[in-house]
């Protein structure tokens, strides 16, 4: 490859990143450092750290950030617990079944996200299908909609494929002869899983966890539609500050803090993973 061709090929993604990633981030950072003002746009360019300090110290924002991290963390764990057996089952299914099963995992993506979340409202309502089913057994009705349960169901339901797919990619590449070797050396199936399958799938776990955790932290639609009024997640708060209060600088500061947190968490996970495999 000649020098200029190489440079052009590298320039295209570079330009893309500059235009659609770096530039918007710079603008958000700029607004986060600006001062709120009346008018259009509702800020005045400046170099003030007040907004960032507010976001980090005000209990309202701190609580929202912590709650978001907690909800995303629990949802990620739930996705992992539900998704790992699914991914393992697909990876170990007969070859002719695998594509069909993978398709089934991805099938929900073929309809609109909002429609699917709305469908859950119908399922979870006090007089919805789930309560009707439970009523058939003489149980309930339970209050499900607008609770934390509904919130977690919505997040896990939505993000489960993002956990299953990287896990499957990892598990399907696991050489079955390694499990035979473990068995041959005296390991019963469960110990072969713990000592061979699980450690070798950790990169898939990390990838899946990051793919679920990061969007779940900033999730806005699901808490809005399914969650209760107490589910003041950071995405919801950000929208309120930005759209209802027209406080762009604070909203931008919140976005910056969220971004730093989200960059920090995967970096930490990766570092821990690398240390554990060394």
């Amino acid at each position, binding site marked *: 490859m000649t020098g200029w061709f190489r440079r052009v090929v590298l320039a295209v993604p570079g330009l893309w990143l500059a235009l659609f990633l770096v530039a918007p981030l710079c603008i958000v950072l700029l607004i986060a450092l600006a001062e709120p003002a009346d008018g259009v746009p509702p800020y005045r360019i400046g170099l003030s750290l007040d907004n960032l300090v507010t976001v980090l110290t005000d209990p309202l924002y701190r609580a929202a950030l912590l709650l978001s991290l907690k909800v995303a963390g629990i949802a990620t764990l739930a996705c992992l617990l539900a998704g790992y057996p699914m991914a393992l089952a697909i990876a170990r299914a007969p070859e002719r079944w695998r594509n069909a099963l993978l398709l089934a995992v991805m099938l929900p993506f073929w309809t609109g996200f909002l429609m699917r979340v709305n469908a859950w409202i119908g399922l979870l309502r006090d007089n919805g299908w789930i309560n009707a089913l439970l009523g058939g057994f003489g149980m309930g009705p339970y209050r499900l909609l607008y609770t934390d349960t509904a919130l977690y169901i919505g997040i896990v339901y939505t993000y489960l494929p993002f956990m299953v797919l990287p896990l499957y990619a990892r598990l399907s590449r696991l050489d079955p*002869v*390694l499990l*035979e070797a473990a*068995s*041959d*050396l*005296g*390991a019963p199936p469960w110990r072969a899983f713990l*000592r061979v399958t699980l450690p*070798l799938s950790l990169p898939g776990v990390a990838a899946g966890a990051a793919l679920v955790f990061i969007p779940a932290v900033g999730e806005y639609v699901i808490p809005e539609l399914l969650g209760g009024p107490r589910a003041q997640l950071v995405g919801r708060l950000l929208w309120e500050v930005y759209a209802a209060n027209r406080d762009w600088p604070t909203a931008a500061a919140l976005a910056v803090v969220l971004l730093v947190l989200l960059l920090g968490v995967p970096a930490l996970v990766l570092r821990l993973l690398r240390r554990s495999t060394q």
Partner: protein
Amino acid sequence: MSSALLTQATRPGGGLTIAGLTVRYGPIAAVDNLDLTVRGGELFVLLGGSGSGKTTLLRAIAGFVQPQTGRIALDGADLLALPPHRRPVNTMFQAYALFPHLTVAANIAFGLRQLGRPRASIRDRVAEMLALVQLADFGDRRPHQLSGGQQQRVALARSLAPAPALLLLDEPLSALDRGLRAETRTELVRLQRQVGTTFVLVTHDQEEALTMADRIGVMRDGRMVQTGTPAAIYEAPANRFVAEFLGAANILPAVVRPDGLILDLPALNATVQTAVPNAPGPVLLALRPERLRPGDGANRLDGVVVDHAYAGDSLTTRLRLADGSELRMTRSLRDGLAANLTATGVAMSVSWQPGACIVLRE
């Protein structure tokens, strides 16, 4: 390294008995009503081409495939009743199957951990096994940091560490390059003698089988065609398949005369003397190329030189016989290559001793 190193190593090699074993994949019998006895402490080589069922047989012994019928017993104890992880049998896998996420030492310790040995005992045993395969300083490495030959030795150490009564080796040398293979062959035999474990080794390489085995079992189509010492199988193959699979052989149709010692070769209009009598009737005469020599002798055939193939230490000459068939003769070049090789198209005679005749029924 001294054998005093092997404190926990030696458990006497187990004797393996297989009777009436059949393994079917759908309608195809990969192993077909097979009987086999392997003596304790023996290095037994299963030799066969691809699809002969030798690997399936090995996997049935290890427990990775379930036979439909038959019996597998180790020192009289039924193996088939046990799942693979309970069998006192270890396998050295063809591509080694080392755990990539574990160090060399942890790989070797894997089987010992499953036995629930105390930590100190595991550490000592791992050190002992590392020394045994001459990788004492490699315990902290990962498999991918090792050369192919080193990985092979780790795989061997890992499978020997729990001191199995029987070690199964699936083409253990096939992933090594040629030079290393010959060296590893002797090393493997030496190790087997040292630890005393019964080895059942699968290979498709006849040279490997001949040089390593105490006894060989030749397999074809899921059946055991012949078992015996390398010399017995080479000198007295049971049939044409074995004669051609182990070493090269010229096969000529012949008829044994009523006296049993004279063979007629009708197609070549020739007669041949054998050293031992055979039952009269139509047979196949097998002649090893290296037992033939140029010139006249007790038995003789005439032909025309087709070509010479020079192999450094030997020279193989192809002759065309009267009926159009070909005959190969291999001569050792211990005195160097003669300057005046018989030219292509020129007549030449070959001869052999009566004892070199191999008479086959099928």
